[in-house]
Each structure stands twice: as C-alpha cells, then as structure tokens.
C-alpha cells in the first residue's frame, strides 16, 4: 500500500523534467514524486535517461545539456538555481553516491578531509570538529581502524572500502535525500550485499530518503519502496516495489523480468526482448519496435503515464 498525501510529506517532486542535448531529448518529460524517508528505485538500461535524471537533481547535467520543467525539493524550485546556490544544496541537503568511487573521490586528497569538507561547507563546523565527526562516520559505514583510513588516499582503499568512504562523505552534510547511481554495480556480490545492508541501516537511522538507480531489478527490488522503470527517456511504469515486481503491466517491465534466468525455474531457452534500445520509431511509443504486442495504435501517439490502479501508473495503450 502506497502512502497517501495525507500521511506523508513530499520531499522531492519533478514535473515534466526534460533534458536536451541540441536536438536530442534524452530525458523526455519525467514526473517523479518522493516522500520523506522513502526509497524510490529507478530502473533502466543504457540510454534510458536514468543517470541524467539523477544528475539534474544535483545541478550536474554537463554542458551543453539544457534542463527544463520543474523540480521542487523541500518546497524550493531547484531548476534555474545559479551555481553558488547549487553548491549550498549539493553535498548538503541532497547528496550523491556514484558507481565508481575511484573517479568520484578526489585522488589527491586524504579520505578524511573529503568527508570533513561537507561538514565545514554545509554545517558550518570547524575543521577540528569535522575531523572528529569523520571518525564517527567512518565507523558508522563499517570502516574498521577509522583513524588510519581517514589519513589514507582513495587508491589505498579497496573498491568496497572506497564505496563506504563515499557513502560517509555523502552522509556528512546530513542530507534529506541521497541519490545513489548504480552504487553496487562495480562491486562483487558479497560486497554488494554488505553495501545494501549498510544503506538500509543508514536510512533507518537517519530517516533520509533515497533514490536508488540501477539496471538490476533484483537489486532495486531489495531496497526500494517504489520503483519507476525508465525506457528511452521516459517513465513507462511506476508502482510499489512489490506490485511492480509481482504484477508488471508494461510489456517492457514484463520483458525485463521474463528475460532474467531464474534458478528456481530453469528453462532451456530464455525469453528475449528483440532488438536494442537504439531502435526508435518516429512517432508513438518508443518501445513499440521491440514490443511483441505492438499494434498500429502504438505508433500513433506517445502513450501518457496513466493510473491503472491506486499507485500503479503505466504508459501503454494496451495495459
């Protein structure tokens, strides 16, 4: 059961979010809503626009990308903010964890300093106060021997440790929203399990909301309250995690689930989705060329995301 507006408070809401690079619209009208303390999973493949949507939430869409629409966070419109204002939001109320901590962390700066920075910038702490808090944070993210790790450079840590350090840096500004883009994709499964457990614990302790972006439905299914599936720049389906995984309505979501090998029900041949995400029609539903159920009507107009039942929205004329 999804929470209703009466019982929860909206933290983030995007409306008709569009990101354009020249003539190419990479994100084409995304509406997301996230309540305080909740976790939204965003699932999509390469080219789905999921990462650019996340970057827009931190004012990090690279030039010459143009962002339009609306994005309100804690009641404030973020689109149109100037860079100095973005810097107050980024790493403060909204923090981000990236897939590859080696490139996201500054290689020339000691890990502890990078974590302390957010506290000095966003919480007005002195460097001395921040250095003490760093040790507590490193401990909280499960890094043993915190004083030594705080003095280490990123390359001196393992992949799993670096991801923990990046999570500590993200938490340092006490964010209301943590945006995590494929945070476990570069990690081995046993380390991935540790990071998923850590994120779930931290969310419970701090009450922060989270947007968890991944290509992996099973990973998202573990951590998300709600899931939005993106395809070619649009949300094609949105529902509670349980509902989306048990009763998917969009043929793309159904296809994604059916193509996964299932050790409980092994079959000689796997279901497939033909073609690839680059196959796009001039008009109508972007998934139609790959859809086994596509009809003529599908190519007429782009389907809108409409409610099929309470809290379950689908952008498909056949759903």
């Amino acid at each position, binding site marked *: 059961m999804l929470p209703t507006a009466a019982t929860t408070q909206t933290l983030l809401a995007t409306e008709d979010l569009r990101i354009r690079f020249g003539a190419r619209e990479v994100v084409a009208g995304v509406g997301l809503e996230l309540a305080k303390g909740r976790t939204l999973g965003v699932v999509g*493949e*390469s080219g789905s626009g999921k990462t650019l949507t996340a970057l827009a939430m931190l004012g990090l869409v690279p030039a010459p990308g143009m962002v339009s629409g609306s994005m309100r966070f804690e009641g404030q419109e973020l689109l149109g903010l100037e860079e100095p204002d973005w810097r107050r939001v980024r790493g403060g109320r909204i923090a981000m964890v990236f897939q590859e901590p080696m490139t996201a962390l500054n290689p020339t700066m000691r890990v502890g300093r990078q974590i302390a920075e957010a506290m000095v910038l966003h919480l007005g702490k002195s460097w001395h106060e921040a250095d003490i808090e760093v040790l507590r944070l490193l401990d909280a993210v499960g890094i043993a021997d915190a004083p030594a790790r705080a003095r280490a450079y990123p390359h001196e840590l*393992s*992949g*799993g*440790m670096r991801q923990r350090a990046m999570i500590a840096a993200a938490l340092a500004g006490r964010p209301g929203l943590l945006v995590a883009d494929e945070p476990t994709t570069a990690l*081995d*499964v*046993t*380390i*991935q*399990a*540790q990071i*998923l*457990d850590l994120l779930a614990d931290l969310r419970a302790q701090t009450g922060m909301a989270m947007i968890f972006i991944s*290509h*992996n*439905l*099973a*990973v998202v*299914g*573990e951590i998300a309250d709600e899931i939005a599936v993106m395809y070619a720049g649009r949300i094609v389906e949105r529902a509670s995690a349980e509902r989306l*995984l*048990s009763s998917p309505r969009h043929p793309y979501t159904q*296809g*994604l*689930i059916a*193509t*996964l*090998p*299932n*050790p409980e029900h*092994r079959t*000689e*041949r*796997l*279901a*497939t*989705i*033909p073609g*690839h*995400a*680059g196959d796009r029609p001039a008009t109508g539903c972007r998934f139609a060329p*790959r859809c086994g159920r596509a009809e003529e009507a599908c190519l007429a107009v782009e389907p809108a995301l409409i409610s099929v039942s309470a809290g379950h929205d689908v952008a498909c004329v056949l759903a």
Partner: protein
Amino acid sequence: MTALLEAIDVSVHFATRAGKVRAVEGVSLAVAAGEVLALVGESGSGKSTLGFTLAGLQSPTSGAVAYAGRGLDRAGWRSVRRDIQIVFQDPFGALDPRMLVGDIIGEPLRVQQIGTAAERRARVMQLLDQVGLPAESAQRFAHEFSGGQRQRIAIARALAPRPKLIVADEPLSALDVSVQSQILNLLADIRAAEGLALLFISHDLAVVHHLADRVAVLYLGHLVELASRDELFERTAHPYTASLLAAVPRLGRKRTRGGLSGEMPSPLAPPSGCVFHPRCPKAQDLCAESAPLLREVTSGHAVSCHFPLGGQG
C-alpha cells in the same frame, strides 16, 4: 568423460614491486568435449587468469595445460590455435574500429590460411546468419553496431575457424539486461549446433545456472568446489559457495542479512591454512593451520574444505 582441455596443477604467479601475486595456485580441472564449464568467482579469485592460461594467452608459472591429452608447449599452442578461440568481455575494445565487420570475422581464417578468398567470404556470410546479423553487416564498421550486436560479431569471429572450444570471459557483463538473454540463447544454440565446448568465465551465478553443465568455484586463486550444476546449486558443500549463492539478489526472494563480512584478502599475502578461513562462518582451529585438499565428497563433486556442508565429510 574425455578431457578436451586440461589444467594440470596450474599455478600462475606475477612478480610485482610489492611482491609475488599468487593469482592461481595449484588448480587442476578439465573441460570435456562439448560441455559448458563455468569458472565462477569474485574479482581477485583468479578466474580470468586461469581462463587466459587455458586459452594460451598466459603461461603457467608451474604446472601444464594439455589439449586432447597432449601437453602444450609453444609449438603445441600453434598447432591447436584454431581449435581454441576467445570471446572477451568488452565488445567495444575487442573489435578494430577501422576494419569492416566482414574482415574482422574473416581475419582468423586469413591468418590461419584456411580456404580460398571466395570460400572465406562465403563462410563470413554463413556466420553472420548464424549469429543473427543481416548479410550487409559485412560492409559496415563495428562502431556502427550496438553492444549486443558487437558481441555477436565477436562470437562470429570466434566461430570462424570451427573451434572445438571457446573461452568466453564475462561475455554478458558489458551488455544491457534486455540484450543479455539474446546472447545467452545464441551461445546455447551455437553450442548445440556445433557441439563445441565452452569455458564460461562469469561472476553471475544466475547466468551460470542457466548455461553451465559443470561449475568450478575459485577463491583467492584456489579451486574450492567443482561439481555438476545441480549438485553445486542443490547440494552446496563449500561454505564460500554457499555464501556466494546467498548474496545474489533475486526477484521474489528476500536475501537473508548477515552474509560474508570482510573482503577477499590480498593475493600478495594469502592467509595460512585454508585461504577462506578468515571469512568463513564455519572455521575452526584446524582451518588456520592446514590447507584442505580438494577431494570428492560424492562422485564428480569435489570440495576443498575440512568441514564441508551437509555432513559430507
């Protein structure tokens, strides 16, 4: 079972400034003709190094690789080169962007001087069809294709000289989820049509369960468990294999918390005794003192553990 390609007590060590990296330690296993053997492990397990050694891209520091019962030295490798082909993880890096796809696929035939130019062209067309690409692809460049299509090109190239075995190193990892099942089905089709063997290197246990006949699990350079697919998944004997299976997120199953803690130790300084003992939930004093030997618990199911699961001691 006739062994087609065999690792016989293979160790691979690398000298680095920091010391000797023990990437593979005393591994013996065999791929039978026509079977799919999966090499499974996390990063640092040595699965790729072992796979490359079995493909002749890496020389063992000690031990030997044998093909059809004959140990392979440098001259031996030349004579079996066309029988063993390789498909890499990254279809973007593995294909020359300046070559036409037809030339890429035909290159192994040209290099090995197999057939006439006309026969090679005909073979390229046949291969394109087999991997599900249109004939006109031959006249295009690899960069014009998507990741999944490039992996099809790489597979066609590997098939060109009619090998007996393909070593595939994480061939799905760089592909989108919706494309992975296409390539998995293609690999299964090819294997059935050509009767070729596959050494499938992967970290993805669900994919391995789908494709493999037998599975070898590696940890820190050691072979810790080797069994048929069903044995391994249903009667898991090594605590590491069990932890690995439990850590995989799966739709419709809640992962139990409290999985493996810590990380794989450095291969520069492997632990004493059983290399898994510092992370093992079942470890006892003996495990820190003596390294277990790989032994059969049931026919065809070998495990390297002093206290295997399921009371199969």
